[in-house]
């Protein structure tokens, strides 16, 4: 490939199609590439796209000499976190509010008649939660930093509440539930959607709790760290447990696990199925023996790029016909479902396309269980099947309370 003959403009056009990583690699190749790859216009695009920055400012707010230096500064400062998550949080920074003053914290404590634990005070001094802008807008309600999930009509996405909102919500709920004003609970995070999910901080124990379906009537809550093991959102992100999910044009933090052992993967006849579940505390009903715990599960299916091959015969597509689930509670079969479609749909899989994802849920009488089963697919299409139906395995995935309930 003759670079010299092509000229600088062509070289620049090639480079402008590269990712920051590949641009950096190009800079290490030769002097000519180094000078083209260092063009600040390339790096200003990266800063704008990935970090929402229109000026070269480092994480501490100081100006840097170039956009290239700026990008490097951010990379270095956040090198201990997965970059996609850093980008995500930086872009939703618009919703994070500046910290409150010591005076405001004391005022809130007086109103609620409690004392915030030290780490929580410091948190509010630096960052007063997330501002929620549009009460009706679907896009805005998915920017919660704690993340969430959705299945059927149940949608939650949890935001960190600003202190003044936390105070209001706490007073409202305490009145609703009839908790004594000496209860020492403060609402710290909640979902701004129709489905309610509320997180409480117990100011005496420092423990976080999440309300169940009986919150309004009984004040029922589940501690977020049932085994008193401290994990963190950060740890979960480190090993890829929690990822970003693109849905309806907005990216949100999805709590469905993405890695084994909580996410299972199986490939049959080149159809790949991944499955994992998340505990839904706000629907849990500790008073109901049969439906105490509810788990939502997310199934992702795709056809590998070589297409479907059954008994040596290749097919360019396949379509789902039926599902067969075996749901176990503590190793005992709880339900055995054999029915058509999934959430009323018959997904058609084409080779190499993005995964078809859907969510559903199942109640369980115990906090530990599993789901496994298989889908029945037909080669080509349901309207025009080119062969006999075949079964695609859904490998067993666990239903269990996580170490840390979000």
């Amino acid at each position, binding site marked *: *490939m003759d670079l010299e003959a092509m000229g600088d403009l062509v070289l620049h056009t090639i*480079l402008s199609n590269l990712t920051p990583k590949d641009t950096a690699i190009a800079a290490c190749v*030769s002097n000519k590439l180094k000078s083209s790859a260092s063009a600040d216009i390339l790096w200003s695009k990266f800063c704008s796209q990935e970090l929402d920055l229109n000026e070269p400012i480092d994480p501490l707010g100081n100006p840097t000499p170039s956009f290239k230096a700026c990008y490097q500064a951010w990379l270095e400062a956040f090198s201990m976190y997965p970059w996609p998550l850093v980008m995500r949080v930086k872009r939703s920074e618009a919703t994070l509010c500046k910290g409150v003053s010591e005076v405001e914290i004391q005022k809130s404590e007086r109103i609620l008649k409690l004392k915030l634990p030290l780490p929580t005070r410091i948190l509010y001094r630096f960052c007063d939660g997330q501002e929620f802008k549009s009460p009706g807008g679907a896009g805005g309600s998915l920017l919660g930093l704690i993340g969430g999930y959705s299945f059927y009509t149940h949608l939650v996405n949890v935001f960190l509440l600003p202190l003044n909102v936390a105070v209001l919500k706490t007073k409202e709920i305490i009145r609703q539930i009839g908790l004594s004003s000496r209860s020492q609970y403060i609402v710290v995070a909640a979902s701004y959607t129709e489905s309610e999910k509320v997180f409480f901080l117990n100011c005496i124990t420092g423990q976080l709790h999440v309300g169940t379906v009986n919150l309004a009537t009984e004040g029922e809550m589940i501690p977020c760290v049932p085994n008193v093991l401290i994990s963190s959102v950060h740890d979960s992100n480190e090993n890829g447990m929690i990822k970003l999910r693109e849905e309806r044009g907005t990216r949100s933090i999805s709590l469905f696990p993405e890695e084994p052992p909580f996410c299972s993967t199986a490939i049959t006849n080149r159809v790949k199925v991944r499955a994992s579940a998340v505990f839904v505390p706000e629907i849990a009903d500790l008073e109901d023996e049969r439906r105490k715990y509810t788990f939502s599960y997310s199934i992702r299916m795709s056809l590998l790029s070589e297409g479907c091959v059954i008994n040596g015969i290749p097919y360019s597509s396949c379509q789902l016909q039926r599902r067969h689930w075996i749901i176990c509670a503590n190793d005992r079969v709880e339900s055995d479902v054999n029915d058509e479609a999934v959430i009323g749909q018959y997904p058609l899989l084409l080779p190499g396309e993005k995964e078809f994802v859907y969510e559903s849920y199942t109640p369980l009488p115990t906090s530990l269980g599993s789901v496994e089963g298989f889908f029945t697919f037909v080669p080509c299409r349901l309207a025009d099947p080119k062969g006999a139906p075949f079964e695609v395995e859904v490998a067993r995935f666990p239903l269990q309370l996580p170490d840390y309930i979000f």
Partner: protein
Amino acid sequence: MKFCTVKQYFDDENNNNVTNGIATTVIPLPNKHLKIKANNKEMEQYEQELLRNVMPQELTKLILAANYLNFKEALDFFCRTVANAIQNKSVDYVRKFFGLESDFEPGEEEKLCKEFAWSFEGVDED
């Protein structure tokens, strides 16, 4: 309107910039594009087919042709192809691809690799 230079090309008898072989590839592109204009995916597939058989040397000629003919869409497309070809590849691979040699001062290259150490993670093996 896409071919300001084409008229010139046909008027010019001794034209070294665009050989016949290349012309037959590049020139039909806009017509095909118009035909499949609505369907981006088909265009992508057509383009992939076209380029599966093209070696890097040919790609240089295609780019030069598109440049000379002032055919922006084709130029952008060929450049994207080059970018895809070097996606997630090592420094050595990119060097070989472009037929370049390292012309850095001793020690300069190490300095650069240190500065951009973050970009070497997860790169494809050569």
